[in-house]
């Protein structure tokens, strides 16, 4: 359970980090909290010839709340969000998600940027950020771009990040309209990766948004279910059918157990949202 050898460099700025990526050999890796990368290196399911440590780049810890929205720095830890150290304009949704991730000793280091950049389909943040319609902020050198998280995450552990780019934060448009949300998560054990996790968000005067992750290729938005839900007084049987349609389209490998599991988590998230 020991990693193969690698070199280690400390980046002091975003430009430092992306320059190191650009000039590195075949397999550099960015390390922030390291709570996924270190065990993957130790288990030798991931390899890196050089680790570029971005954990000391202070600007990536900053969160800003403006009239446009909230930008959460990539190095913000799950524990910082759990403890309310950053504003949560979504009525506690961010705190709720953060507190359900793994265990406190992991949450002290794991970062939102790392979670999004790794793109584990069972991770909590990508599902949450999809439901909130977030954009991923990405940089190389002084150049930055932003991309909807639904497009940024391409498949299991695959994102649109180019070799010399890093994730610097997440941007979520702000809405002053009242909003409700629901979250349901099924995992074998408290703190384990979810077999199924659904998050539903509704802002008044906007259509609802429902995201699902877990035992899937990639987390996704449930378009048919959201359409069905925006019609007032939809009978549950029609909502179930719409959820099943979304799950079949996005998780073609789902057997009858997974169909029932995902349908239930979505329904429970939607019910929780309805009761808020």
């Amino acid at each position, binding site marked *: *359970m*020991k*990693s*193969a*050898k*690698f*070199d*280690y460099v400390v980046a002091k700025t975003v430009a430092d980090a992306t320059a190191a990526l650009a000039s590195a050999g075949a397999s550099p890796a960015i*390390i922030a909290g*390291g*709570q996924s990368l*270190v*065990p993957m*290196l*130790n*288990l030798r399911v991931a390899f890196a010839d050089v*680790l570029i*440590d971005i*954990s000391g780049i202070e600007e990536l810890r900053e969160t800003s709340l403006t009239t446009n929205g909230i930008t959460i720095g990539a190095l913000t830890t799950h*524990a910082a969000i759990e403890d309310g150290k950053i504003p949560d304009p979504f009525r506690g949704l961010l705190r709720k998600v953060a507190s359900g991730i*793994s*265990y*406190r*000793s*992991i949450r*002290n*280091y794991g970062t939102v940027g790392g979670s999004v950049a790794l793109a584990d389909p069972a991770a909590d943040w990508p599902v949450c950020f999809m439901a909130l319609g977030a954009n991923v902020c990405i940089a190389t050198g002084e150049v930055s771009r932003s991309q909807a998280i639904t497009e940024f995450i391409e498949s299991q552990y695959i994102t649109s990040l180019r070799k010399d780019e890093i994730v610097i934060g997440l941007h979520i448009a702000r809405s002053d309209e009242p909003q409700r949300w629901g979250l349901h998560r099924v995992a074998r*054990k*408290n*703190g384990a990766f979810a077999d199924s996790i659904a998050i539903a968000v509704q802002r008044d005067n906007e259509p609802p948004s429902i995201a699902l992750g877990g035992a899937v290729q990639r987390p996704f938005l449930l378009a048919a279910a959201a359409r069905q839900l925006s019609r007032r007084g939809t009978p549950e049987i029609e909502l179930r059918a719409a959820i099943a349609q979304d799950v079949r389209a996005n998780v073609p490998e789902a057997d009858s157990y997974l169909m029932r599991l995902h349908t239930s988590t979505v329904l429970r998230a939607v019910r929780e949202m309805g009761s808020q």
Partner: protein
Amino acid sequence: MRPVTIELNGAKVVHDIEPRETLADFVREQCRLTATHLGCEHGACGACTVLVNDKPTRSCLRLAVMCEGCTVQTLEGFRDDRVMETLRRQFHECHALQCGFCTPGMLVMARDILLRLPNPDEQIVRRELSGQICRCTGYANIINAVVAAGREIGSAGGA
């Protein structure tokens, strides 16, 4: 190899460290502090939990080179800690260990729980300790001990 300076249990240590060496291997192999136990070595069991800059940390998931300039506290570093003294006594009273392998991680994590969430009830302790795995005692006595320590500290006027 890279020189790294760490304040370990109150004393400054400087060592040349290979980047791939975990904090757990560093404290055990280089510093001969063997209270930190290694169970799974991939962040699942919690036996290797130590404090880094006062925060519970899985030392098997932390590269020692990333601890440059940090304070690290292993179980050996809690001799004069009042919360830990109470926990140690309650673990004894409640029979909260058999083989003792998970105990260092349990104690470090339990201390953090009592400081963050004073006087926790059983449900909170169960949730907060769920990242620490014990393979012999079962969890009931461990949870009883943490709840009892929290109550004792609470009634003595706060931690």
